[in-house]
């Protein structure tokens, strides 16, 4: 009895909830949603409503268009409930006959999810054209209790919405009354529909309609056998009906029961002589009412459960799909993070004199009392006296603009070069053929978004106060220096000499790391996890920086080597300033160009480790285990 199946109900509910949560997470994977996947529809339409409910049997009459489904349905319920027409594809909505008081004990809305339930009023009801999925229902006194009988739309006409409705009925049905004809038993659409039904272990009752008796008596087994071989269907019962329109319209069509056992070969299955064919018509309603409801229910629910946990078609296939898609994302993001997105050989440097000025100013502000005044006086005097000299000097050097403006321009040029390089790199990556990246990058790479990016960058760049940044830098560096170093005063004294020191050549690399190969290797370099951009300032700065930290004592002994030390110190200003600037660039590019792409990729990659994924996986294995136990207990 299905009571043993009640245990599954909890697991199924859990599974369903987790699946929906997982679906929310998978949006970024560009996967098709759950709706429309056969196993999910079965879960929703069959398992959830039927596992926890009392036993009732859903019987659907299904088949291709214009082969007499409605005729057979009418015969089955013994009344003209569904209108019949010589034209094809007329029944557009399912009709359901419901036993007395059934709707009080069960929730029809829940049983037929996704259909708008409408009380039946006339046989022409199912013919109306309506975008909604309607289901017309009607009470019937003659129906056995706990039996629902449905007429369905076709599965092969040019109105594809009909297929969908028929499929929904198939998913929740237990018994399918399969109508076949000699023209349609081998049609691709028909075979496809019933192949699914066979996989879901539905109970199949076949009615071979419109046979030309007695000629076709010799052929229908051949036809049906082909059908069974192609679809894997194993009909419980077989009836044949003659091609008799008169009888069909007046509810007089006879259904001759036949025995049939499919054979694997193409030969005609032998007629079982013991149970010779009779010409006595069977009453279809009686046949169905006498079915073992409980056993059938267990069979179909078990079939549905098996379908659900099956490796190739069920949830595991979905999980695999997520995993492989996530893997694709991994390779996509590796592709992105392996590429050093930008390489800048010659980061511009602020002119030495500017730094010297900044240090001087800082020095000035550090002094106190009379000393500051005196120095201030001499400084002003010096400035006045030296002005013509400086002016001439500046003319000769052709640096008529303020040096910071010059720097700004140079930096902008480098920014442009970098952006250009990044675009080239991204174009290359997008052409490498990873579809996921290609689609995402395409919009990033088009002209309008480039224009927008340049505009934002330009605006941000124009707003930056370089002088203030430099002052801040000098302040922090010098404060540190003063407390740490005995060379402090020497440095101050030699400032002017330092201004003439050659400026270092800086090269900078920018990575935008999601994770992956480079991400791990360079993880120490990640300055800020939010930014996740690695700035790597290299070149002869490195040497200089080393001198600053290591050579402290070595340098302090003699003044001669002190100059080298001071040079190194000075270079450090350049390097740190460049570092600050490249950090800005990296952040800006992250924010305005790549946006959330790295994060999206990352979370997509990590999806198979997410809580919902694991939960779904657990539910499935639990279900499998329960199914195995059930198998053993039976």
């Amino acid at each position: 009895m299905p009571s043993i199946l009640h245990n599954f109900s909890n697991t199924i509910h859990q599974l369903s909830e987790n699946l929906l949560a997982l679906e929310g997470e998978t949006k970024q994977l560009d996967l098709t949603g759950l709706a429309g996947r056969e196993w999910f529809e079965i879960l929703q339409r069959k398992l959830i409503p039927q596992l926890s409910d009392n036993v009732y049997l859903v019987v659907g009459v299904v088949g291709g268009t214009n082969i007499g489904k409605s005729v057979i349905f009418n015969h089955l319920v013994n009344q003209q409930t569904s209108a019949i027409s010589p034209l094809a594809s007329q029944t557009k909505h399912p009709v359901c006959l419901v036993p007395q008081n059934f709707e009080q004990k069960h929730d029809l809305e829940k049983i037929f999810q996704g259909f708008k339930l409408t009380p039946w009023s006339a046989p022409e009801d199912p013919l109306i054209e309506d975008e909604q999925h309607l289901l017309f229902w009607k009470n019937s006194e003659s129906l056995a209790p706990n039996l629902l009988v449905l007429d369905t739309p076709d599965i092969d006409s040019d109105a594809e919405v009909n297929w969908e409705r028929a499929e929904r009925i198939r998913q929740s049905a237990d018994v399918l009354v399969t109508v076949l004809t000699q023209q349609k038993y081998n049609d691709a659409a028909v075979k496809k529909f019933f192949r699914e039904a066979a996989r879901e272990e539905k109970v199949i009752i076949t009615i071979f309609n419109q046979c030309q008796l007695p000629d076709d008596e010799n052929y229908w087994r051949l036809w049906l056998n082909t059908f069974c071989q192609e679809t894997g269907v194993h009909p419980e019962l077989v009836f044949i009906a003659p091609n008799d329109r008169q009888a069909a319209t007046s509810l007089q069509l006879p259904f001759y029961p036949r025995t049939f056992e499919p054979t694997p070969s193409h030969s005609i299955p032998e007629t079982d002589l013991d149970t010779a064919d009779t010409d006595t018509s069977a009453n279809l309603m009686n046949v169905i009412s006498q079915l073992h409801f409980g056993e059938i229910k267990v069979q179909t629910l078990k079939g549905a459960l098996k379908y659900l946990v099956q490796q190739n078609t069920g949830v595991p296939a979905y999980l695999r799909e997520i995993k492989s898609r996530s893997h694709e994302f991994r390779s996509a993001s590796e592709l992105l993070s392996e590429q050093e997105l930008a390489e800048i050989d010659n980061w511009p440097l602020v002119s030495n004199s500017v730094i010297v000025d900044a240090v001087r100013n800082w020095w000035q502000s550090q002094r106190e009392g009379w000393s500051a005044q005196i120095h201030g006086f001499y400084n002003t005097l010096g400035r006045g006296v030296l002005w013509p000299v400086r002016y001439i000097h500046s003319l000769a050097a052709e640096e008529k603009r303020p040096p910071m403006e010059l720097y700004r321009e140079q930096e902008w040029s480098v920014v442009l070069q970098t952006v250009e390089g990044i675009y080239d790199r991204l174009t290359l990556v997008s052409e490498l053929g990873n579809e996921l990246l290609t689609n995402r990058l395409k919009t990033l790479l088009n002209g309008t978004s480039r224009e927008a990016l340049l505009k934002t960058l330009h605006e941000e760049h124009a707003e930056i106060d370089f002088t203030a940044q430099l002052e801040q830098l000098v302040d922090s560096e010098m404060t540190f220096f003063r407390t740490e170093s005995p060379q402090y005063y020497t440095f101050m004294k030699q400032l002017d000499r330092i201004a003439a020191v050659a400026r270092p050549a800086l090269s900078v690399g920018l990575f935008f790391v999601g994770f992956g190969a480079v991400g791990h290797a360079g993880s120490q370099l990640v300055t800020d996890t939010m930014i996740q951009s690695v700035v790597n300032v290299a070149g002869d700065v490195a040497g200089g920086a080393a001198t600053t930290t290591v050579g402290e004592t070595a340098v302090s002994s003699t003044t001669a080597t002190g100059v080298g030390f001071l040079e190194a110190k000075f270079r450090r200003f350049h390097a740190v300033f460049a570092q600050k600037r490249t950090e800005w660039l990296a952040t800006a590019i992250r924010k305005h160009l790549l946006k959330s792409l790295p994060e999206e990729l990352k979370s997509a990659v990590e999806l198979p480790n997410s809580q919902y994924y694991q939960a779904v996986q657990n539910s499935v294995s639990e279900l499998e285990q329960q199914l195995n136990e059930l198998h053993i207990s039976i």
Partner: protein
Amino acid sequence: MPTSEIAQIEMLAAVDRLIHQLQSWSEQKTDWKTAQQCQAVIHQLLPRLDTLRVRLQSPLVIATFGGTGTGKSSLVNALIGSYCSPSGRQRPTTTDPVLIAHPDTDLDRLGLDLSQFQVEQKELDQLRNIILIDCPDPDTSETNDQSSNLTRLQYIIPLCDILLYTSTQQKYRSARVAEELKEAAIGRRLIFVQTHAGLDEDIRTDWKQQLSQQFDVPEIYFVDSVRALEDQLADRPLQKDFASLQNILSTQLGKSERLQVRRANLLELIQNAINHCSDKININLPAIRELESFLKQQHVSLTRQMSQELRTELLTSRNLWERRLLSCVSDTWGLSPFSTMLRVYNGLGNFIASASLFRARNSAQVALIGALQGARWIGNRQKEQATENRLNRIGSFGLDDNKLRESQLLIDGYAQAAGLESQPVQHAGSLDKLQTEAAYFEEQFLYDAGSKIDAIIAKLTRKNSGWFTRAVYETLFLSLVVYALIRIGKNFFYDSFLDENNILAIDFYVTAGVIFLIWTGFLVMMFTRKLKRGLGLEINQLSDDLANAKLSQGLFPQLEQTCQQAHAMQHSLERMGGEVHQLRNEVATSNILGAWKVTDPVTDADSKTPHLTSQ
């Protein structure tokens, strides 16, 4: 020659011309990927058109088409009046197509691979004009593997001229068959037949309604093939619908109709391909337009920037203006005391300028020096110091590297989005190339500016140095000279001889010289000031003119060309579409055959894409 024959020949020529145009269209070289794809489609089509043209005169190939069990083989048997193609009850019955032809028909000319068929030759009158093929069904196969019926069918269909589409009450709305028919019907005539008349009800009205959404449906025949065959074997009279179907196939599709059918098929194939390509191109054209409008915008902004720069330069280069104006005046005035004076001043100035010219700070000064002289100067400069100086010049003129780089970045994006092959714009050294382009762009601009400046100078000169001005200045200039001469003359001839006064001392001459210098300097200054009257206005006018002037090419001439070509290709495709549409209307076959419905994509596309906006 009878007129009908001339009309025929005319039509043939028109079709040939059209195919020729298509061919040359598909052979154009273009960087636009969409166009390349379309060209590939046309390339695929052309050989098929050739085979169609070759067999224009041979019997029509008629094939059955319809779902399994709709009685295709039965119909074929009934049509030839004997059991020829096996019809049966196991589905699918026909897997190998059967080809039935008259023994006199030369099958080799059809270009069919006969090993694919079971060939039957029948000595029947109704087979003189046609070849019948009984095809497998399209609707039992679920996959497209090699041995499936669908694959076999898809091989045969392109070889047919007419499809005999059979269906039944059960099958006439089958989605699968309809889908296949949609593909198969293009380039073929259709005859619609409802079979199983003995068993089924007549659904032709509903079917016709369904079919009419996509096809022209002149008539649907409702036949009972089994009965028709029996009737023929027993020499009974045939049922009406079957008789007329047989009549059409055997008699009406004679030689005259043959050409019509084939030509209509040919045109339909062409039309279909052109429509396909047009759609594709129209979808992708907006991206090209975007690129174009961006190119234009770049062009405008560069020109504007340059003219702005030119204006400031011109307004500050006072000395050059004066020299040019003065030399112009002295040239027009010819030899006279004051103009000689001007020339001397100018010559002195030029002497200094010639030294400074080769250190000319910017291009605006070059433009000002004069178009001719400037061009010569540019030419020499180019030869001597190619890139470096040019870059400096560009830098001083607003077209600096950053600007160029920005342009390039954006253009790259637009070009990529438009689906242009990247090779013309991208990669190493492209900035150098761009700089060269920019230099040419600038030269063009300067040449333009130079000739305009010449005009301004001529105009200012004319305006400000009329005979009255000349008279005044000559008088003023001469008055001092004359006064000094009189004074000296009087002193020399009269005072020193008669009054016995002393001859004028050297002091006098020094003072006179100084006064002369001051006087002439004053006059020249006044004169140049007068000449320059309205100069500012003219310069503003000039820079506005230049900003709006259309230079023949921008910074990205290659891209501009590609865009233009894209438009040209679209236009010619549209034109061919229109032509083929017109031809198809002219060839319209008699009303016994159905066909794929003629759509009118050309006018449709016209209304949607106002391609004049780009100009």
